């Protein structure tokens, strides 16, 4: 032990490069630390000094519980763990390195991925972390964690722990029943209770993950050199959904995979209602890649699935009899709606790390960590002396305190909170729905155009077409014939025209949204952000429910254009998809010049719009679907 003490003292000396003052110059060794090391150290100190500003200590309004977090935008959106905010409630207090305590409100939660988005109030210039591309993180990279382990910092100055990336693309089985860590980053930087929800930074101080879980077994809930961070790329996929104020669900393909006898990953079970099945995937097919990532193990398959939210479409490649097939598949929800809500409200025993209490006087004989019942395998010490109590948890029984009476919600939080079933905070859903709606209507206001809509042009292949849309239904005319569709209460009953999957109902709903707006349409909420085939960036999505039919309206997040409408007449069938493009301005409104209609794997048709007429309902003579010929007026003219 003595040797260790001497060593420790010597290390400190070496670290500070202190040379005893009375040492004769001749005996002083020249500085032995290479200048490159000193430079690296100075750089590291500078990086950490910058990084600390975005780090949060998170507490419930009463000061109980706690964890860490990190701000990711100047207007105060911040990330943490679901299991940190859950015991705190809807309102939070966040301490930052500037010594200030800020009010914050819950925005959205991902209980399965153990992520929560919160928003801080009080500044519009919050220091925030830069998000890295965590797919480029490699084993051996230096990294550091920041946060408030054991709630040590009373001035909110975060604790830094330094380490390397020990593993990437790690899969960790669900702890308890819910929290599944997929595709996570493993580090040997010290992660202790209270670090939960805090950032894992790369060596340049960019955010690569959110620390949330450790391999804690018999050694108690303190660092064991193995901790896991949720990758920032996974969180980036969920970020739009989290902004929707929802309780967000993860996804499944509806497929179980396993190794076959020669070590390929094959389909062992497949749900016939799944999109994967409709896209042609069958039992015993080999999974080649998913989400653009080569699949070589069942864990690798689960890793990829774990980083996507419900409803995303991702590329799937599979092989059967030497033939390779590529498809875009829609992911199903991992949970039934009720199931997810129940789990989100679940018992604290499912939480992977206990939350330390800040205001508890530490027992002088005790570790400063959370106090746990002693492990059953710790017998009394043979000589009767008291052991230093390194807390060891009983399996499945992290100690959680009953929430004490919380002080009333701060006024600023109250103004930004709206409870609604299925949502963590409906306020933010409305906020984003209105943002998307405003951006779209700024491109063209159709609210007065509640009469007959006539869209005419040429099908690719030079056949003329015309659509007529009104409150009562729609009509689709080609030179060779026509299809009519009447809007009834049994909305999804007829999906005219045949083989389109319901093009007329889809156009009808598009017109309805444009005319009535999200408040009158039915129930319209902001869904989040989704990828769109052949598009780099994700797009904003509104989801509308009208007479039992679900429709998605996808918008360009920059331009505000409507990019696509998808109408799902019922669950587990392919939607009719309309893709709008080639927007151009006509009479102060942006109108699409091209409309591509798809159903499942098939292209129904490409419609080149040449003339669009939008009429106001004059009230006296309600326009109905009627015979129509080619309009002679100027393009896009309105009455």
């Amino acid at each position, binding site marked *: 032990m003595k040797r260790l003490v001497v060593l420790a003292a010597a290390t400190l000396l070496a670290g500070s490069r202190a040379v005893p003052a009375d040492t004769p110059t001749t005996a002083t060794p020249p500085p032995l630390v*290479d200048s490159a090391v000193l430079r690296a150290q100075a750089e590291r100190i500078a990086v950490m000094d910058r990084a600390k500003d975005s780090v949060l200590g998170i507490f419930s309004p009463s000061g109980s519980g706690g964890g860490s977090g990190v701000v990711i935008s100047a207007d105060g959106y911040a990330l943490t763990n679901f299991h940190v905010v859950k015991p705190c409630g809807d309102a939070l207090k966040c301490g930052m390195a500037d010594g200030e305590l800020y009010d914050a409100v819950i925005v959205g939660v991902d209980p399965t991925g153990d992520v929560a988005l919160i928003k801080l109030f009080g500044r519009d210039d919050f220091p925030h972390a830069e998000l890295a591309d965590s797919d480029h993180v490699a084993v051996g990279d230096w990294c550091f964690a920041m946060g408030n382990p054991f709630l040590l910092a009373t001035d909110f100055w975060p604790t830094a722990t330094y380490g*390397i990336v020990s593993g990437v693309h790690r899969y960790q089985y669900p702890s308890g029943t819910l929290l599944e860590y997929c595709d996570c980053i493993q580090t040997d930087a010290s992660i202790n209770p209270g670090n939960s929800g805090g950032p894992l930074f790369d060596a340049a101080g960019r955010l690569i993950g959110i620390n949330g879980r450790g*391999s804690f077994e018999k050694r108690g809930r303190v660092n064991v050199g193995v901790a896991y961070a949720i990758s920032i790329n996974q969180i980036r996929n969920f970020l739009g959904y989290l902004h929707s104020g929802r309780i967000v669900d993860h996804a499944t393909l509806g497929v179980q995979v396993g190794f076959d006898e020669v070590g390929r990953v094959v389909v062992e079970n497949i749900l016939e209602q799944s999109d994967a099945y409709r896209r042609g995937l069958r039992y015993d097919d080999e999974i080649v890649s998913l989400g653009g990532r080569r699949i070589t193990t069942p864990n690798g398959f689960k890793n990829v699935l774990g980083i996507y939210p419900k409803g995303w479409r991702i590329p799937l490649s599979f092989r059967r009899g030497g033939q390779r097939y590529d498809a875009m598949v829609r992911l199903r929800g991992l949970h039934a709606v009720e199931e997810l809500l129940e789990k989100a409200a679940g018992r604290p025993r499912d939480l992977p790390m206990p939350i330390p209490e800040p205001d508890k006087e530490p027992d002088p004989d005790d570790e400063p960590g959370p106090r746990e019942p002693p492990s059953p395998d710790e017998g009394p010490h043979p000589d009767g002396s008291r052991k230093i109590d390194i807390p060891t948890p009983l399996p499945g029984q992290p100690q959680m305190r009953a929430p004490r009476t919380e002080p009333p919600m701060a006024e600023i939080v109250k103004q930004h909170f709206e409870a609604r079933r299925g949502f963590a905070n409906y306020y933010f859903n409305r906020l984003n729905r209105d943002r998307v709606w405003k951006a779209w209507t700024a491109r063209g206001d159709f609210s007065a155009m509640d009469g007959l809509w006539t869209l005419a042009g040429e099908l690719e292949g030079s056949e003329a077409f015309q659509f007529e849309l009104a409150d009562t239904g729609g009509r689709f005319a080609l030179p060779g014939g026509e299809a009519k569709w009447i809007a009834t209460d049994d909305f999804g009953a007829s999906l005219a025209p045949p083989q389109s999957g319901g093009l007329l109902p889809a156009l009808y709903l598009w017109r309805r949204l444009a005319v009535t707006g999200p408040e009158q349409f039915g129930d319209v909420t902001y869904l989040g952000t989704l990828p769109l085939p052949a598009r780099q960036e994700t797009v904003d999505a509104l989801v509308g429910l009208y007479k039992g039919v679900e429709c998605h309206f996808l918008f360009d997040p920059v331009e505000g254009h409507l990019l696509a409408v998808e109408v799902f007449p019922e669950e587990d069938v392919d939607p009719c998809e309309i893709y709008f493009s080639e927007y151009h301005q006509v009479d102060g409104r942006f109108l699409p010049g091209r409309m591509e209609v798809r159903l499942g794997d098939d292209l129904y048709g490409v419609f080149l719009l040449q003339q669009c007429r939008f009429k106001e309902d004059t009230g006296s003579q309600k326009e109905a679907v009627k015979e129509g010929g080619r309009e002679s007026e100027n393009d896009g003219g309105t009455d």
Partner: protein
Amino acid sequence: MTPPMIRSLLWLVLLAAPLALPAAADSGAPGNRALGRSSIAETITQVQPKIVKIYGAGGFRGMEGYQSGMLISPEGHILTVYSYVLDTDYLKATLDDGRKFDAKLLGADPKLEVAVLKIDAADLPCFALDEAVEVESGTRVLALSNLFGVATGNEPASVQHGIVSVKTSLAARRGVFETPYSGSTYVLDAMTNNPGAAGGAVVTRRGKLVGMLGKELRNSLNNTWLNYAVPIAELRTSVDEIRAGRFDPERRDASTARPQRSLQLSMLGIVLLPDVLQRTPPYVDQVYPGSPAAAAGIRPDDLILLVGERLIQSCKALRDELEHIDYEDPITLTLLRDQELLERTLQAKIEEEP
């Protein structure tokens, strides 16, 4: 200059020496990708294929059914720790590339808790034990193992970083750490010795083999866990001997000549635990008073590890081995008692024929 000061300066030199040489490559400069990544990432890429995931007996609480190992020959010799995990006929080894092999316990030296496994393979990446290095306190090292069984299949082993705090002997800690191993160890300042980590490799930043992670050791005084590695130099002789056929657990084949009259446990005055498992560990249950075993100081609860140099893994293996020993020859038993290894030589007492 006062003596403590001299000591401090000495430490300064010791600490600085390993820093100064590879400083440029090992600085791990934040933001300096080219520097920080090249040395460690290259080392990791080079070492990871040599790490083996081993699966065997265990699998219940506190007794993980897995550990780590490292390849030490291109034809599939695996160095690992000798533990209960190896106590099965169904040992499996998974290589870094995901290939799974049946592994055979070639032999083990209980004194050093070292074992060598063999898989049927060729052209494997491996460590050369004779190229292992000895390092000083302050040397920066990487530890690679499958701790907590985090990796499966072709997923790479976990990597941790740290420094060698001190090279010391655990013998002085007897009664504190429960281990029969009494040689020197590298104490590490990283949380390396977790469940499943035993058998993993500790290497320098340049990938030179330094030591093998040992079994979990808890300090019985303060309830903390020791993070340590056994220097390869301590293991080399044993490993060579095991590979040369010493400490072979295999029963002699049936053709081996047997003495006319074999040794029996009753002649030694030893009664074993009832043989109820496929592999019941050969614990002594009773020792007859006045017997050769009693005279040699053998006691109930002693575990018999070796007969001569033959590794004994079960009651049945012990009886089989005695079959091949003439009742008049003395035998040497290596025993484990309270984590201490004892050697006792016994001579059977021949009953007078009536």
